[in-house]
């Protein structure tokens, strides 16, 4: 069951990257807003790292945004 969910997610990514989303997007000169620091997917890497570490220590889930590996005896 979980393997099937993974495959669906993989297929979605592949289709999107390949062609499905090619009608979206902007031209290079339209990237003014997207290039702003506050529009980056991770605005603050230190804060993201701190939060990941806290929730990794207190909950059964980790990762998603990036690697969920571990590196801590707290879980």
């Amino acid at each position, binding site marked *: 069951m*979980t393997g099937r*969910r*993974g495959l669906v*997610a*993989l297929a*979605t*990514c592949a289709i*999107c*990257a*390949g062609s499905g*989303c*090619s009608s*979206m*997007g*902007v*031209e*290079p000169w*339209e*990237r*003014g*807003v*997207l*290039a*702003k*620091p*506050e*529009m*980056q*997917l*991770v*605005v*603050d*890497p*230190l*804060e*993201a*790292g*701190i939060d990941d*570490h*806290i*929730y990794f220590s*207190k*909950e*059964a*889930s*980790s*990762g*998603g*945004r*990036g*690697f*969920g*590996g*571990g*590196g*801590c*005896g707290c*879980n």
Partner: protein
Amino acid sequence: MGATDGGREPGSGQFVQRLAAATCSLLGIGSTVPVLAQEEPTWALDTSFLYYGESDERVQDLSLNVLARRLFADDKVLSFGLVYDSLTGASPSGAIPLNEVQTFTRPSGNDVYTVQPGELPLDDTFLDTRYALTATWQQPLGRLYTGSVGLSFSTEYDYTHAGLNFGITRDFNTRNTPLSLGAAIARDEIDPEGGAPLPLAPMGNIGDLSARRPGTEDKDVVDLLIGVTQVVNEHLLVQVNYSLSDSSGYLNDPYKILTVVDPATGEGIARVPAPGTAGPLHEYRFESRPDQRTKHSLFVQGKYYMGGKVLDVSWRYMTDDWEIDSHTLEAKLRWPLGDRGWVEPHLRFYTQTEAEFYRPSLPVGELPEFASADYRLAPFDAWTAGLKYGFRTASGNEAGIRLEYYRQDGSVPDGLLIGNQDGDALSPELDAVILTVSYGFDL
């Protein structure tokens, strides 16, 4: 720290884009902005101080975090991260409150501690210092690819981690659709105080380490990630990641125990320590988890720009072969204040189901293959609410302060309760305050 506010004039636009790309690489995800050339190498430093404090004298953490990034000409980026954590306080041992005084042997086997009737047993020997180091190198590979390789290492009193990670991003659709692949491997070594307890071994008297396995235990973790980011229009960006994480080896928490109870009443089973020594006054067993766990995560994030304000919304679904399912919903809204400042309210909701082998106590005479009373494997909901204020200094550096409140609320399902046990009393509530102060600057 976002560190990289456009205030680092002039040329800061390029700087920002380079850092954004480097940041995404560090996290194993794709960036939507091209890395641009920089004539002179520069250092960008982000620093952050964290106070994390739980109520009821539970865990307190003081943490210093530094991220240093060296930006070279020809779009190459070298990054170093350093984290120092100082942990004190107490953590729930897994044992349940009883109507009598409880005595536990400390993990070292050298001493005992006592918990009063009706109180949640906390192991108060939790004291640790942790150092973590990361190093990452990122560079373009031809016109459309960016590659990265990184190392991670961390050490604390009874735990050592060493890891290696790789990432590659290819741009599609005139850089509107970057596709990222990442892989990480890690080997962690655990050297529990007093040795690793044998699975479901009874807690012994002072000096009795016969049910412990001396030496170190280890754990291997493999992470794979595939992610695609799509620029939808000038104001909207969407990312979808699928990740797989496989852990094998020693996955127990060597300090977590279960209370052995009467199958009819749910009360503890009295125990008499051997004459002339001290030990537990009730029966407890150390936990036992499977030695393998596979997690699948689907993560979706959207960023939407609304006339100066930025809405950041994400959802994560996680499922694993321990039968834990979780959902995490998160939203941040960055709201500009004047020319240099901004505020950002933050809400997070988390919910998880229990592991199939989670049980708050163990009926006497019953020895399943796997059992754990760790509250992190229990069913619960959690909320975070917080507010951040950030501003750019006159010199173009960026400072921020963030205060958040975190609350966990759970209740043991009726099916797992025995006799007269009360589901709410067996679920430790958790309240915590998270305070971060951050500052980013260039050298």
